[in-house]
């Protein structure tokens, strides 16, 4: 312990001496493990690339913990310069006008060039306001994609499905071949939010919540969405779909062990999967319903964005802008994409990785970007819903009850709508 304290003190004094005369900025994030290490590498690269600014990343635990710490710090005036906020928390921070400086304004005011068109289609709107201005700077971005157990498909003699109709046709064959045809890892993200995006159906009133917080209501009772869950339950009862609770890894494990044929995971999962999967695998897009008109567009972006917190000096804000600019540079994007498995968010970085033959080596790494680069439509830009982490909890509760046989999909959706609309109305009051 004493040794650790001494080392920490030494590290602090060294960093203080090396960054003398530079402006210090801090960055709070919610990433651990290898992804946390990559953040430190990014910070080192930035600090080495220029002398005016020095950034210090601090891990605050999980996404939720990072947001909670950021809020607590802001209330006592101790906020960091940059805060990482995850997709479900976007409404909380963006609706708190005055808590952040929109990333686009920050960059332009400090003399950096900013081009919305440089970003791939799927990441452009999620953290932007209803006019398309970037409020948050997209950072680690992912998409729900389908991983394929190559052995299973070969044994059953079938092709990977593009639509859920195709899945229904091949699922019995996969079952006959001795595999569990389908598992997933997060129903809320993969079968609700991105059901609405991929199938191009309105998710919430008020333009998916972008236009106003007042009287926003959620659209989970949409007949197609209810149908999706009725299908999942029927597949579950027929042994075509496996469900092991709301926890991500309990479901992923079945696929890793080679027992399942198809798994809906994250585009960011492939790095880990390469180490844990016991069989060869590939990946493709998240299926959609061929029967729904206009379906098959890109998915919502998942992951998190960086927000520049308000209440900092101009010099510090300039450094924050400089760091954002650094993050979107092609080389850095390519490095981050390859080191973590998150998608490259700029077209240039994607082109660079492609020209270097990276996806020939690792085709699964390209699927997320391709899915996010699909043509956009009206309802796949994003959603902006207050108290959304709680709404997700309500969904998780009801979805578990569906598979435990305690409720029907239709009743579950009505319960979710009732409770979610109440939460949304509550959130509207917080702005009062």
């Amino acid at each position, binding site marked *: 312990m004493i040794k650790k304290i001494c080392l920490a003190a030494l590290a602090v004094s060294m960093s203080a001496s090396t960054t003398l005369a530079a402006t210090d900025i801090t960055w709070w994030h919610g990433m651990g493990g290898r992804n946390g290490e990559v953040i430190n590498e990014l910070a080192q690269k930035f600090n080495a690339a220029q002398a005016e600014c020095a950034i210090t990343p601090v891990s605050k635990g999980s996404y939720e913990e990072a947001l909670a710490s950021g809020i607590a710090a802001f209330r006592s005036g101790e906020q960091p310069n940059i805060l990482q906020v995850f997709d479900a928390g976007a409404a909380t921070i963006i609706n708190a006008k005055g808590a952040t400086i929109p990333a686009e304004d920050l960059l332009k005011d400090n003399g950096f060039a900013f081009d919305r068109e440089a970003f791939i289609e799927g990441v452009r709107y999620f953290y932007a306001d209803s006019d398309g201005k970037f409020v948050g700077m997209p950072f680690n971005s992912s998409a729900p994609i389908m991983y394929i157990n190559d052995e299973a498909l070969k044994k059953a003699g079938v092709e990977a499905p593009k639509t859920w109709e195709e899945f229904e046709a091949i699922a019995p064959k996969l079952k006959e071949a001795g595999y569990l045809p389908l598992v997933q890892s997060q129903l809320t993200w993969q079968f609700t939010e991105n059901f609405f995006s991929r199938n191009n159906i309105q998710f919430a009133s008020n333009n998916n919540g972008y236009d106003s917080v007042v009287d926003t209501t959620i659209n989970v009772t949409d007949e197609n969405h209810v149908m999706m869950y009725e299908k999942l339950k029927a597949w579950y009862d027929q042994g075509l779909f496996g469900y092991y609770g709301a926890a991500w890894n309990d479901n992923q494990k079945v696929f890793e062990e080679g027992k399942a044929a198809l798994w809906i995971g994250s585009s960011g999962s492939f790095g880990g999967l390469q180490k844990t999967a016991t069989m060869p695998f590939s990946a493709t897009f998240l299926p959609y319903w061929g029967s729904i008109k206009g379906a098959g567009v890109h998915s919502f972006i998942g992951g998190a964005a960086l927000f520049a917190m308000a209440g900092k000096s101009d010099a510090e804000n300039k450094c924050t802008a400089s760091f954002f600019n650094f993050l979107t540079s092609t080389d850095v994007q390519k490095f981050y994409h390859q080191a973590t498995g998150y998608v490259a968010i700029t077209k240039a970085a994607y082109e660079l990785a492609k020209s270097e033959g990276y996806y020939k080596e690792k085709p699964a790494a390209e699927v997320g970007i391709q899915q996010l680069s699909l043509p956009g439509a009206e309802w796949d830009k994003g959603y902006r819903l207050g108290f959304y982490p709680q709404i997700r*909890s309500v969904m998780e509760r009801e979805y578990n009850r569906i598979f*435990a046989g305690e409720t029907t999909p239709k009743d579950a959706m009505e319960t979710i709508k009732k409770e979610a609309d109440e939460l949304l109305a509550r959130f509207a009051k917080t702005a009062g």
Partner: protein
Amino acid sequence: MKRVQFNSRYLPYLLLLPQFVIITIFFYWPSAQAITSSFYIEDPFGFGSSFVGLSNYTDALGSPEYQKIARFTVAYSLIVTFLALSFGMLLALKADAVIRGQSSYKTLLIAVYAIAPPVAGLIGMMMFDQHIGPFVHLVALFGWDMKVGINYYDTAFAMIMVAVWNQIPYNFIFFLSGLQGIPASIREAAAIDCKSGTRRFWTVILPLLTPTAFFLLVINMTYSLFDTFGIIDVIVKDKPANNPITLVYKVYLDGFRGNDLGSSSAQSVILMVIVLVLTLIQFRFIERRVHYG
């Protein structure tokens, strides 16, 4: 007995001051804050807030979900307290009767207490894991398809098992020392009067153990209400879904995960009142029956 008097009128207050400052900073002040913010619906960043009167309280108390959690919390606390006390006492009685190798028995039984609740939760979770849990495999032989994480009652069962397992050693230590505090002369006298060991336990040993048992009752109730937070967090893996949780966990979920400070504050005030009432009941009605030797 000689009464000790302070020379100065102010000295006692001065000596009280450090404790008072600590209580004020860590208890009274946050409590006052919680009570104030329980009357508002507030933007988490502190930009806007609307006064809503008692509606945070009525919303929470009127919600079927909250009532369900409250019912579970009551059942959970009673079951955990009852089982942890019974097993603790049973083991203490048996260990007290062992003559050879007594200290190894004791050490083995006490060692579990050194495990922190989240670690206990992790170990417990491994026992009950859907894919690799030895306990799940065992009960599968008897036709119980245990699904911790999906089935409400299976998760509740796992939670109670882990919470009880983690608390038994603490109760064991206190009961054992309580037993050893009973004079041998009383035991011997009782043994002459009554042949049945079970009867002696109910009529002589247990009444003499009541001070220890009462203390442990209070401690175990607070343990099951509050300290099992870590176990619950590990077992539900951060996503409670339809699984059982306690009121404290709900306060955390709404406040720290959901950033709904108003509702979370109202819930913590409700909890504060519950604990106050519980403590009053315990000291008013149960302590009367405790026999301090």
